[in-house]
């Protein structure tokens, strides 16, 4: 290839302008914001630099509530959705009839509007003076006590949030695992069958090792995605998440930025950077674990 400096940069120019203005500059700026103490949106002035914003955020009960909610959500939904997706993908790959139909149906939540379908979930789960709601009908028919999942006790609200999150993230995981399973060389299974290997052993000795890179990929992206949860919670509980006690870390960032409690970009930046640190740490741990497992296997 001949050198074409000017021309190449011209081709890159639009992308560089967009990326520079809306990605690189903001990244530098967010660090500065997070260190500016007493920033005032109206006058755009501040007192000085320091760690106060971080300390404020870390002592804010709303932030701590958001961190707690986010961690619970992550710890429940990541293993649950990955496990369920594995189960469903294994089921899908073991059948032939109706497979396409099931695959299409399972993918539907991916293309739906989170906010719109969240409204349907809210109606299914809530309990008002006028109606018990459909889910409570199920709960009481199974002999349980009806409960308002939307404005009721914390555990009930967390349950709906987790359920909705799993519902939303499963399509992606099922898709990835189904194609991973399809790419496993069939001769391994034929050989194992000749040896009279049991199904369970085939699963743990062939299937699992072959698709484990994809499982790790899903776990890592799952952690990242779940830590950034926000819209699902808004869809179920409305925009005032602090009042509902169901805010997430990302929700806290946006609340600090805008809305009734907004106007504090410094606090928002500090909170966003704390989130980034958490996500990076978890991802690093995941990568180390996956590498260790891979080494042990070979």
């Amino acid at each position, binding site marked *: 290839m001949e050198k074409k400096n000017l021309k190449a940069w011209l081709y890159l120019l639009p992308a560089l302008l967009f990326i520079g203005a809306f990605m690189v500059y903001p990244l530098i700026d967010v660090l500065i914001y997070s260190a500016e103490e007493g920033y005032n949106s109206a006058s755009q002035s501040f007192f000085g630099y320091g760690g106060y914003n971080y300390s404020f955020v870390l002592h804010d009960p709303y932030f701590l509530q958001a961190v707690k909610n986010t961690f619970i959500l992550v710890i429940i939904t990541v293993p649950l959705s990955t496990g369920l997706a594995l189960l469903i993908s294994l089921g899908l790959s073991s059948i032939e009839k109706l497979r396409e139909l099931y695959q299409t149906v399972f993918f539907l939540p991916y293309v739906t*509007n989170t906010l719109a379908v969240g409204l*349907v979930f809210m109606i299914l789960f809530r309990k008002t003076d006028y109606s018990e709601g459909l889910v409570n009908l199920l709960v009481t028919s199974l002999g349980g006590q009806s409960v308002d999942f939307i404005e009721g006790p914390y555990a009930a609200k967390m349950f709906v949030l987790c359920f909705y999150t799993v519902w939303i993230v499963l399509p992606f995981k099922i898709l990835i695992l189904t194609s991973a399973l399809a790419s496993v060389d069939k001769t391994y299974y034929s050989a194992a069958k000749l040896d009279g290997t049991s199904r369970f052993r085939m699963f743990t000795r062939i299937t699992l090792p072959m698709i484990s890179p994809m499982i790790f990929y899903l776990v890592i992206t799952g952690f990242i995605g779940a830590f950034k949860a926000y819209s699902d919670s808004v869809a179920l509980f409305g925009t005032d998440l602090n009042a509902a006690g169901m805010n997430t870390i*990302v929700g806290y960032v946006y609340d600090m930025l805008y809305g009734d409690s907004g106007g504090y970009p410094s606090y928002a930046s500090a909170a966003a950077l704390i989130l980034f640190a958490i996500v990076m740490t978890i991802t690093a741990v995941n990568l180390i674990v996956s590498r260790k497992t891979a080494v042990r296997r070979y």
Partner: protein
Amino acid sequence: MTSAYSGKKSGKSREALEKRTRVLSVIRKVFVYLMLTVWAVAVLFPFYWMILTSVKSYGEYAAEFVPKFFTPSPTFENYRSAFTAVPLARYFVNTLIFTLVTTALMLVVSLLAAFAFARLDFRGKDIVFPLFLSLMMIPSELMIITNFQTITNLELRNTFTGLILPSVTSVFYIYLLKENFEQVPDDLYRAARIDGSSDFGYLVRVLVPICRPTVVTVTILKIIECWNSYVWPRLITDDQNYFLVSNGIQEIRENGFGRENIPAMMAAVVVISVPLILLFLIFRRKIMAGVSRGGSKG
């Protein structure tokens, strides 16, 4: 005698064994289909419920303390009020404009950049490209804070410009296109140059048609992303005239129709969900292939 006897016995037991395996495999099949069907119902039920509720009259819905699974007298009244009582058509048109312009800009910018990275040699490429890739790992939450400030300071709130500009950049799509461009043999490029084609002509007339599947995939993924975007539009618009469907549905939930007119809300939800579901059903294979190559939710 003994040998004949034992032969008979082993034949019988082999038959029994085969029968047992057959029964076991039928049981396993039944179990698999049962599991898949349970999840298919869990996926489809919210859609059924939103359509059902949207055709119930307000009076009928309000009178149901215990929700009913069918309606004897479906009505389209709610769809009329969805378009008359709230500016749903406006939300719709806004989203359409936003989606089309953002996707078109993204395509132009990404195609040019991908071409430069894939086909042109220039000084600084070794530095720019890795930096560029590393941007993929940074969560957008970090960038939104400054972008919000930038757009506010430029007084671009409640404008399409403010909505669209920061939504254009997609590092990942540039990467995807670049990878695809690189698979096209060099000979084609040389042949095109000999025929007197310019670089730009080669990109438009040769590269894009050859890489059409990837281009289409990227386009569809971006359309889905735009149609469902919620966070940025929420931060940047508070004038209903610029609301997108996600924000519109949140507005409808909190202020429209009167809080308890659920059937009208569901009609709006159906209207919002239909375009993407249609798009999905038409481009099902393309979308699923594209997502498995590197999409994720959010």
